[in-house]
């Protein structure tokens, strides 16, 4: 297995520049600071060819930001992206454009990400036309083929997005991403808005497409059940950092990080009947002012002195299973 996309030491901060009044106040000696949101803090992630990587975590943990950086929609504040071993920023413009096409994104809200005034054939056909993708015969035939592939009736090609149901819109979004012949699909909560019965249809489609087009996925979801079903390897994030990563079965059977353990314990499951929930305390802290040391320590039942001051490093605890927790150093 060779690395397809490598994200090396990615840090992403969002800040709003000070306005004029704040700048003047600062000159006058007031302690006005630029508010900086630390969305990602030194994150490394390698996605291998043919792999389905599941990225899970609660809202505000930075999983969408990481997905957008992976897809090239956002540029990291610090860090490097490498495609098949080559630093993307160092590539020639033409090659960089090719790489950009190889990574496509499928969004959560299919309605917001589809232009309401374009017909489906235009939505799917626009990118291959603009980018001069080899569409074999004519573009109409190419679009029909794609629609059939994602389970849409090609006779709907003249319709507008509002004439479709939620599940069908999700399929349009997938067809659009596939139109430029990508190798890596970044799916950001692509099934979160769908009903269970429709969600199952779309998840099956993702798996079918993986086999048909030899696709690699970065599958972002807050739903651990979906991640468990689909992913080969799972990455758990908490407040801008990756806390644990392992092959799916290993992670669900032997969660190592206390946060992963808490998360798995609290996922509602059909087989977990009436019981007394014993939830972990507290909420995810603000990324504007993240805690020192391990980000999870204010909620962690095992927090030690060291956790409050030093950032725990990633350690391999069994083959392919990495975790960032000082508990692994104790014994």
């Amino acid at each position, binding site marked *: 297995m060779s690395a397809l996309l490598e994200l090396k030491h990615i840090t992403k901060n969002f800040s709003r520049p000070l306005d004029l009044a704040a700048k003047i106040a600062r000159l006058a000696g007031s302690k006005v600071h630029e508010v900086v949101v630390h969305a990602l803090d030194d994150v490394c992630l390698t996605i291998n060819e043919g792999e389905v990587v599941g990225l899970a975590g609660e809202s505000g943990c930075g999983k969408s930001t990481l997905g957008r950086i992976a897809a090239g929609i956002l540029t990291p504040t610090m860090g490097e992206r490498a495609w098949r071993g080559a630093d993307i920023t160092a590539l020639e413009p033409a090659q960089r454009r090719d790489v950009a096409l190889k990574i496509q994104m499928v969004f959560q809200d299919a309605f917001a990400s589809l232009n309401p005034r374009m017909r489906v054939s235009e939505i799917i056909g626009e990118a291959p036309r603009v980018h001069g993708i080899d569409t074999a015969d004519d573009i109409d035939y190419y679009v029909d083929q794609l629609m059939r592939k994602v389970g849409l009736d090609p006779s709907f090609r003249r319709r507008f997005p509002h004439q479709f149901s939620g599940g069908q819109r999700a399929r349009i979004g997938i067809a659009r991403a596939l139109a430029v012949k990508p190798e890596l699909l970044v799916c950001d909560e692509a099934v979160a808005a769908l*009903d269970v019965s429709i969600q199952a249809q779309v998840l099956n489609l993702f798996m079918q497409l993986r086999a048909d087009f030899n696709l690699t996925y970065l599958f972002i979801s807050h739903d651990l059940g979906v991640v*468990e079903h689909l992913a080969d390897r799972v990455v758990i994030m908490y407040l801008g950092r990756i806390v644990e990563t392992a092959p799916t079965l290993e992670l669900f059977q032997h969660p190592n990080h206390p946060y992963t353990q808490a998360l798995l314990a609290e996922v509602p499951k*059909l087989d977990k009947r009436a019981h007394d929930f014993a939830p972990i305390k507290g909420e995810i802290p603000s990324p504007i002012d993240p805690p020192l040391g391990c980000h999870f320590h204010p909620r962690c039942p095992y927090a030690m002195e060291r956790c409050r001051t030093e950032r725990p490093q990633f350690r391999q605890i069994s083959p392919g299973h990495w975790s960032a927790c000082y508990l692994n150093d104790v014994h």
Partner: protein
Amino acid sequence: MAVLAVENLKTHFFTKAGVVKAVDDVSFSVDAGRVLGLVGESGSGKTVTGFSIMGLVDPPGRIVAGRILLEGHNLLDRTDDAMRGLRGDRIAMIFQDPMMTLNPVLRIDTQMIETVLAHQAVSKEQAHELSRNALGRVGIPSPDERLKAYPHQLSGGMRQRVAIAIALLNNPRVIIADEPTTALDVTIQAQIIYEVQKLARETGTAMIWITHDLSVIAGLADDVCVMYAGRIVESGPTADLLDHPMHPYTAGLIASIPSRNQRGKPLHQIPGMTPSLLRLKPGCAFRDRCPHADALCSTAPEITRPAPARTLRCFHPMTALEEIR
């Protein structure tokens, strides 16, 4: 005796395009201190059922038939003013988006005290004290500080707790919770479900928990009603219904949950999609997606009681053999 009983409720919307039967002959009841889960996919009529009980159905919608009995009294006989006195007092609702429930320009204490004073003859100080206690009961740390906060200063989970605290203020007999944890993270959802379970048991409040998520129901509700296209297709005690679903829709829904399927294998899927309520054909609404459907299904199935405490609307229920599948 049941605190709340809904009998043959029909809420229809008279739109220009035709009559939408959002709730069509729905009956259920909840006892004190029990949690009833109302499960269904989008457009199945579960929210409209909740709104009908609260008397919040707006035109073109109208309750065309049925009775809603709160402690034996039919709510549909009441005037709008009398309903206004009941809402927030005997019967309360929690919505999915707490930002919709809370007034963004008023402090939490103002909103809570207002709710108490609207229904109870107490002094402002006593109302403040009641509000403080209610926040404590839903697990909000340092309630005195939170009372002075504005809604935007709280996190999503905190806001939902405040909304629950407001619903609890006047010790209602029934709380209707409409997808209250859907927008929240799992750890926060677990915290809130924990508090709600405790409260229902301690205060004897009957609870109707509306959700699309069967897994949440599994850990929380005592009884479940499954809705499809405006009708309750199946109901029963939670464990019994989830272990032995009889309606093919319930069975399909359970089977399509990812964790129920073997990893990596294609998920079980229900073909097709929810029908439009505007063009519902007579007969069983699920028949176009149902593996069992035959000519008999073009007449509407009546409610049967195939087992103790179970109800079912289906001519061809799942057999024990299929369940093993």
